[in-house]
Each structure stands twice: as structure tokens, then as C-alpha cells.
């Protein structure tokens, strides 16, 4: 099979995969598109949203569509790193026994790992997870376990602040995207979710999803895809300007109300962040049946790839939720291409 044909068939699978997830969780089209992009760009995702809006259903649907194993763990304040690796119990014969924990249980078939309320877990747990995310391997029982296909989805509870540990900048930076999952706004979807019995039984709903691209194909497909989608010199200039603008927005004409722009930024996007941005943009271009990047591709993923990487000066941090979207919108609106 030629390379183009392979990419084209895989794109059809990806679009069908997206369509099936959209049938499973209603009214989350934009979030689903971002998750599909993250899956095919092999990036970890930070989810944000209220309770009960369908985050777990969404992730189970993704896991079902990709095949492979799905594991989930709830973040609690007493969760220790070892709890991710193993658990101990007394066996029937009365002797202590050790079994692999959620991360090790399925080994290299673990495809989707959902860490619920990650900010309730201690920094030690974050550190372990970050290694698993960055290196796709983990050290336990005196040896390294490879987790080549793992993709981590973490949910951040933003309602309660008590007994939570804010993710450090380095941890956030390892996530490709932060996706906001909001409740559907149209009445038709809300009515369906309330009254259609199909949405009441999550297991049956998930079982409807037919597998498309297999999880073990994703790494090589992502590699090929990243090689094939081209970025022209003009586009590279555009991305570079965006990057610079994320550090010094005031030099690019970005102006926010009641903000001294020279004081606003503490840190802009990291090189890893920009690399993630381009990887995600390439997947967006591929889904749009192009073999070259357009500014629209970058714009489509800019907010989700950047919002958790930009750090504001502490005096503006309390207005973060208002300022960050305005800042990103301002950067996109002020930087011209070409």
C-alpha cells in the first residue's frame, strides 16, 4: 500500500472514529475534534470541566474506538506513587501477595489512562506520572516497564480548592492540550441526554463503537503523518511570530483592558509547547485532507495547546480565567499570515 493511500485510509478511519464519538457524547464536537487530534498526534491531554458532563464516557469511547486497555484512577490526597504501580493483599493461603497496579497491570497494551482529579494527588504521584508520560516507561520491581502506547488523560477539578495540589508548570507543560469540556448548550442535545434511554446505560453506549485505527498502529502512523505534512517557510515564520508573541505580546500590538502588557507575562510558551502545537496542527491539516500546513491549522489548536503553558505575573494571576482567553485571541488576531 502506498504511503498516500495509507494516510488517506487512516484519515477515513479517524473521521469515522470522531463521528462515532460524537454519536456517543452529544454536543461536544469541538472537544471531540481536539481529542482526536491529540490521539493522532500522540499527546497527553488535560481535561477541564464540571462534574457529570461526560468526560469519563468520552474517554471510554476513545479507548473503545482505539482498542487496547483502559485504566482509570481517582486522585486522592493519600494516594501514593506506589499505588499506581502495585497493591498488596493477603492471598487465600494467608501469605502476603503483590499484584501490579493500574499502570503496570496491562503493560504494553495499556492505551488510555485516565487520572481523575489529578490535582488532588500529591506531587510525588505527579512526578511518577510525568515520567510515564514523558518517557512512556516506568521503573518498578528493579526493572523498566515500557508503556509504548500509553496516552494519559487527566482531569483537573477546578471547583474545589481545598486539599488540592496545583500542578507545577513542568507537569502542565508535558500535556499537549488542555481541553475544556462544557455542557452542551442546545436544547435538543440536553433533552436527548435526559430522556433518551440510550444515554442512560454507558456500558451499552460504549459497546456500540466499532474499532477503527488500532492503538498499536498510532505511533507509526503519527510518525509518518508528521513526516508527510509540510510546513512552508512562510508558515514557519508565522509560527515563530506566534511563539515570540506569546512571550512579549505587547510588541505585537496585543492590548488587554486594565493590564500593563509589559508586566503581564511571567513565561511564554516553551519549545516543547511549540513542538506540540505544530504536531497537533499537522494532524488538523491531515484531517482536512491537506499535505501542507495552513495558518488555520495552527489557529485551530492554538488555544488548547497554549492556554496551560502561558504563565501570568502573580498580580494578574487571579484574573487568569478572563485574561488568558483574551490574550490568546489577541495574539491570533494581531499576528498576520502572510
Amino acid at each position, binding site marked *: 500500500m502506498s504511503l498516500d493511500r495509507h494516510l488517506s485510509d487512516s484519515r477515513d478511519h479517524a473521521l469515522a472514529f470522531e463521528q462515532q464519538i460524537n454519536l456517543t457524547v452529544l454536543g461536544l464536537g469541538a472537544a471531540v475534534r481536539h481529542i482526536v487530534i491529540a490521539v493522532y498526534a500522540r499527546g497527553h491531554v488535560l481535561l477541564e470541566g464540571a462534574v457529570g458532563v461526560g468526560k469519563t464516557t468520552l474517554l471510554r469511547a476513545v479507548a473503545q474506538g482505539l482498542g487496547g486497555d483502559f485504566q482509570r484512577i481517582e486522585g486522592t490526597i493519600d494516594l501514593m506513587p506506589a499505588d499506581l504501580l502495585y497493591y498488596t493483599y493477603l492471598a487465600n493461603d494467608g501469605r502476603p501477595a503483590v499484584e501490579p497496579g493500574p499502570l503496570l497491570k496491562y503493560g504494553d497494551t495499556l492505551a488510555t489512562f485516565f487520572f481523575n482529579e489529578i490535582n488532588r494527588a500529591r506531587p510525588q504521584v505527579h512526578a511518577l506520572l510525568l515520567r510515564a508520560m514523558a518517557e512512556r516507561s516506568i521503573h518498578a520491581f528493579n526493572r523498566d516497564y515500557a508503556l509504548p502506547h500509553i496516552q494519559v488523560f487527566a482531569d483537573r477539578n477546578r471547583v474545589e480548592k481545598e486539599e488540592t495540589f496545583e500542578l507545577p508548570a513542568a507537569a502542565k507543560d508535558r500535556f499537549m492540550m488542555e481541553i475544556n469540556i462544557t455542557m452542551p448548550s442546545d436544547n435538543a442535545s440536553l433533552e436527548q441526554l435526559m430522556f433518551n434511554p440510550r444515554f442512560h446505560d454507558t456500558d451499552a453506549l460504549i459497546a456500540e463503537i466499532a474499532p477503527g485505527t488500532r492503538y498499536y498502529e498510532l505511533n507509526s502512523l503519527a510518525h509518518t503523518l508528521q513526516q508527510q505534512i*509540510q*510546513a*512552508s517557510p*512562510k*508558515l514557519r515564520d508565522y509560527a515563530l511570530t506566534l511563539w515570540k508573541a506569546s512571550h512579549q505580546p505587547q510588541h505585537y500590538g496585543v492590548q488587554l483592558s486594565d493590564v500593563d502588557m509589559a508586566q503581564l507575562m511571567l513565561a511564554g510558551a516553551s519549545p516543547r509547547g511549540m513542538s506540540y502545537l505544530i504536531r497537533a496542527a499537522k494532524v488538523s491539516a491531515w484531517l482536512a485532507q*491537506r499535505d*501542507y*500546513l*495552513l*495558518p*488555520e491549522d495552527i*489557529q485551530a489548536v492554538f488555544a488548547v495547546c497554549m492556554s496551560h503553558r502561558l504563565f501570568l505575573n502573580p498580580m494578574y494571576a487571579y484574573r487568569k480565567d478572563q485574561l488568558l482567553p483574551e490574550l490568546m485571541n489577541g495574539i491570533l*488576531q*494581531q*499576528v*498576520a*499570515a*502572510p
Partner: protein
Amino acid sequence: MRILFVLFLFVLGCSSSVDEPIRYFKVETPRPFGYVNGDEISQRIIFETRPGISLERASLPGKGPLNRWLNLNDIRVSQADDQHYQIDLRYQIFYAPLEVKALTLPSFELQLNQGEQHLSQTVPAWTFTLSPLRELVVRQTEQGEYMRPDSPPPLLNTRPALYGLLASVVTALALAVALAWQYGYLAFNGRRRLFKKALRTVSGISKNEMATGLQALHHCLNTLNGQPLFVHQLADFYQRHPHYQALHAQWLWFFNYSNRFYFSPGMTVVSGDIQQLKTLCQLARSIERGSR
């Protein structure tokens, strides 16, 4: 015998009145005295002709000097119908007599036509007396100069004319400014000259300079939009500049073409593309001028 004679006289009388070419003729003149140098004298001639007879207008005296001291200022012929004529003449005298003097308006002949035949009617001369303006010898009196200049003529009121002139000048200036605005000649009116400049740039480009042309048009749109304009923001752009929505298809072509030109590998420019870009610039320019 007496009866026959009376009948004869009657028939003779009737035939005579029937044969007269002019049934009625009268010259109305004003008083024949008390005129001084420069006075105008009006004369009216009223006459009625037989049917079929018409006045030969060429026989009337022409306007202008008739002799050394007499000028015919105006002559008007009016007709109530084919037979009734009224001729108004207005003479002016230029004669300074030393004492009261009788002068005569000359007589002239009115020519009348009846088919091939020519008839004439004499307008008689009219005599009147003309008086001197002053005594022969200028005398000095205690009351001052006997001869004194004319009182200066009253000045015409020029104020309405001045106001009219000012209003015209202001209107003309306003129209000139409006036209300059329309044609984008005003230097501070940058937003009305955007596509004009772009058109100038695009008009001179060759296939190798496509980037210059695209850049010029992008610059126009970005400036007009107040910030960089991307294809997915066109709807917002139309809300602020609704006139440009008429070119929606052409803008889509432009953005897609620009995307392919700048971002896709292996793009080749053909001369038709430049022509299309020029046409788009011209259309946008006509919208900018308000002529579309």
C-alpha cells in the same frame, strides 16, 4: 328716376368700401409739445386690412438712427388676428435747440401685399416742438451754480449678489471635497485609498512578483479590518464592511489562492491568476469609491 339714382349712389357707396385695402387706419401720437433733448416719443399705428392683405414687415423702418437727431429705439408689431395690426414705435430725440423749435418725425410707407399685388399706406409725418433745457446764456446766481452736474446715480445693492457668490463658492468647494473624497485624493483619507494603492501595485506586477500583489491586497484587507483578516473571519468583516460582501466568491478565491501560494509546495503562477487578482482589485476599488 329718383329711385334709380338713389340705388346707383348706394351701389357706388358699397363698391367703394369693399375695394378699400385698409378698412381702418389710425396713428396715435402723444402731445406735440414740451419735449427736451433725450426724450422718447411713442407712436402707435393701428390699422385693419381687408382679408387676404398682409403687412410687408420689411417695409417698416429699421431700428437705429433715422437721421442726425432721431433714433428709432424700438419697433414692435402685434396682431390680434390676420387683419388687425398694431405697430408701436419708440423714437428718441438727440437735439439741443437754442429756442423752441418744431421738428418732424418723418413719414414712411407701409407696404401691403395682396397676392402678387403691392399696395402702400403712408404713415404721415408728425410735427412737434422741442424746447431747450436751459437759457442760452449761463448765468451766475447767488443760489449757487446754475449748471451743476447730475446727482450721482444711486449704487446698486450688491449684497445679494455677494451672498450668492459666496454660496456658490462654498457649494463648489464642498463638491470638490466630496469628489476628492470619492476618488481618494485626500491624503488623510487613507482608508478610502487602500485599494487604489493596491491596484497601482497589482497593475504593474509580473508572474514572478505574485507575492507582491498578494501582499498588497492582504495589507489592504488587514488595514481595513483593523487587524489581520483570515478567511474564517470574513463573516465578521462583512458585518463591518457590508459593501464588500458582493465580492464574497472572489475573496474566497483570493484567500484560497494566497494559502496555496504561500503555504503549499509546488505552486505555479499562471498569467490568468494575475489577471484575476487585478480584476478583484478593480472591483474592490470601485466599491471603495462607492460606485458599486
